[in-house]
């Protein structure tokens, strides 16, 4: 089913265009927004199913054969990522219905959300480096606008840093693509894979790979390029930061994994060794940053960085088991992190802020919310048998198998520190009595809006538990994704056709 490959791009685009056409009607935009996200989710499920059944699939856009036209490729990794985008997109669209204010909806919130999803899916599916740049830009501009939409001061401040540093990343990426074309005469990733491998491994190619590493590293928020993330992710409304936290940085990680398994494997000792080192620092500095925070979303933001470290740790170790661990980690993290930001939004709705000293008493007043926080939070900290445990364990196991004791040690200690900051939120926001609140006064019931916000939260929490109780499905997917990534021959053949 080849059209399945393009659906994740054209469905959100159609939805966005529809929202623009109906831009005067808020209700129509809400309907189109949710419908678009739902359609994307369905398409993503079908795509993954089809890739699982038939293996890597490629479609030559415009029927121009690779490497001349642009090829969209879905292997298990990208299909899985598209599915995750679909899940996050759908959950967020539901959540937004209850939590986004009318003014933002009026000014294009739903259209932009769909543009964002389009860019993300495009980046996951494309098999062409310049096209990858284009999708990054689509995703970025949508995120810029969503970040700034609403015009509050904090948003403006966050957006300035977010925009500037991400534009740096885009500029470096664009330059890298240009140089790569100059060096190889092609843009198709599969073709690049062949041509780079055929070249004598020279310093220039490694330099280009470093440019990609920096460009994607900024987008993925690795050490020491992550500054824009903690400066901005806590400023927009909850659903926006949830989608950013869940999806956006993972696109950078995806691109890193794709490029450094498919194209840049000519100098593994240097490049992947460097990535491992970066991973260690990223994990540590992220989690330490979180420990220093005392605001719900800031803690979560710094944790994204820390967990990006885990994701690229698998890439750095560069074995099939390790990459499988990375893939599993990404999938787990997207679901869990999105959910935690959702919960933070509910906490804000109930208590009026994100600062931990102003929160409290949520466990007593809203035990269900507490449970739904506890599931993703403990999963994030790697407590078994939730999804995060398997993610962390897969990486630890892969690391110890090749005697990467240093990085595994860091990963384990960071796990403990993650637990520390999750319990900090739990202790302050949920256990601690609400400040200034008479202990005996009964809690006001949740508003209908807040209860609607709990629906996507519950869905994602259930998913987290399900992955934990039956990790086999996702594990098999990750293992297969890793096998495909580590042996790109199948990918190349699928894109380029059988070598004549």
């Amino acid at each position, binding site marked *: 089913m080849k*059209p399945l490959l393009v659906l994740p791009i054209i469905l959100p685009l*159609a939805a966005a*265009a529809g*929202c*623009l056409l109906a831009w005067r009607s808020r209700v129509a935009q809400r309907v189109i927004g949710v419908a678009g996200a739902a359609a994307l989710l369905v398409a993503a499920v079908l795509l993954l199913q089809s890739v699982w059944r038939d293996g890597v699939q490629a479609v030559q856009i*415009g*029927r121009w054969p690779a490497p001349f036209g642009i090829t969209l490729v879905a292997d298990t990794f990208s299909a899985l990522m598209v599915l995750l985008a679909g899940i996050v997109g759908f959950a967020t669209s539901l959540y937004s219905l209850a939590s986004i204010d009318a003014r933002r909806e009026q000014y294009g919130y739903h259209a932009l959300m769909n543009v964002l999803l389009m860019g993300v899916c495009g980046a996951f599916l494309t098999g062409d480096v310049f096209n990858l740049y284009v999708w990054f830009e689509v995703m970025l501009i949508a995120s810029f606008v969503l970040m700034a939409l609403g015009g509050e001061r904090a948003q403006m401040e966050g957006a300035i840093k977010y925009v500037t540093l991400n534009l740096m990343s885009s500029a470096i990426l664009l330059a890298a693509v240009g140089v790569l074309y100059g060096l190889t005469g092609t843009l198709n990733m599969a073709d690049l894979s062949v041509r780079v491998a055929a070249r004598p491994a020279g310093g220039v190619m490694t330099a280009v790979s470093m440019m990609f590493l920096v460009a994607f590293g900024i987008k993925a928020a690795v050490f020491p390029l992550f500054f824009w993330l903690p400066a901005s992710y806590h400023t927009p409304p909850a659903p926006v930061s949830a989608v950013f936290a869940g999806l956006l940085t993972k696109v950078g990680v995806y691109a890193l994994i794709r490029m450094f398994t498919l194209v840049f494997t000519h100098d593994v000792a240097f490049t992947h060794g460097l990535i491992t080192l970066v991973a260690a620092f990223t994990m540590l500095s992220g989690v330490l940053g979180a420990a220093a925070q005392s605001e719900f979303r800031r803690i979560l933001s710094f944790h994204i960085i820390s967990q990006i470290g885990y994701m690229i740790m698998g890439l750095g170790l560069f074995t099939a088991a390790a990459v499988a661990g990375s893939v599993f980690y990404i999938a787990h993290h997207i679901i869990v992190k999105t959910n935690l930001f959702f919960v933070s939004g509910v906490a804000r709705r109930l208590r009026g802020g994100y600062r931990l000293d102003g929160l409290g008493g949520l466990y007593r007043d809203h035990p269900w919310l507490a449970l739904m926080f506890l599931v993703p939070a403990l999963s994030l900290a790697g407590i078994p048998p939730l999804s995060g445990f398997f993610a962390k364990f897969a990486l630890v196991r892969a690391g110890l198998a090749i005697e990467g004791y240093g990085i595994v040690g860091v990963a384990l200690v960071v796990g403990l520190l993650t637990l520390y900051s999750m319990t900090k939120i739990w202790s302050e926001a949920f256990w601690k009595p609400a400040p200034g609140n008479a202990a005996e006064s009964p809690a006001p019931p949740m508003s209908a809006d807040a209860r609607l916000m709990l629906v996507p939260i519950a869905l994602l929490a259930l998913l987290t538990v399900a992955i934990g109780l039956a990790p086999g499905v996702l594990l098999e997917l990750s293992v297969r994704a890793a096998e495909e990534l580590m042996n790109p021959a199948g990918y190349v053949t699928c894109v380029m056709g059988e070598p004549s």
Partner: protein
Amino acid sequence: MTSVILTTTARLLHPVLLITSIFLLLRGHNEPGGGFSGGLVAASAFALHAMAHDARQARRALRIDPHVLIGVGLLTALSAGVMSLAAGAPLLTGLWTSVHMPGLGEWAIGTPLLFDVGVYLVVVGITLLIILCLSEAE
């Protein structure tokens, strides 16, 4: 700002610019030009109008809301691509047909041209949206 000279120039230039823009759009496939430059020229026609009169007048002259123009443009480009899906070919595959134009001979008409029209519309829409908003924000 509204001087008589500017108003007159704008009135005279308006149709010229619009025709030029369509010319650029159509010839783009064979000569320098295309939807993007054509769109910019068309937008400049209305921008000039806005400078000569004011933004509200320019909006009136445009008749269509820029938002809608963008939406229509996106959908046009998209449908140019999706048509080939219906024909069983991959997305954005060019479908061509030959049309006999009196005086011009055989003309190849295809979905890539429609796609370029979509680009044209989007460019007109966004340029105007930005310029009109900015000049209204005074």
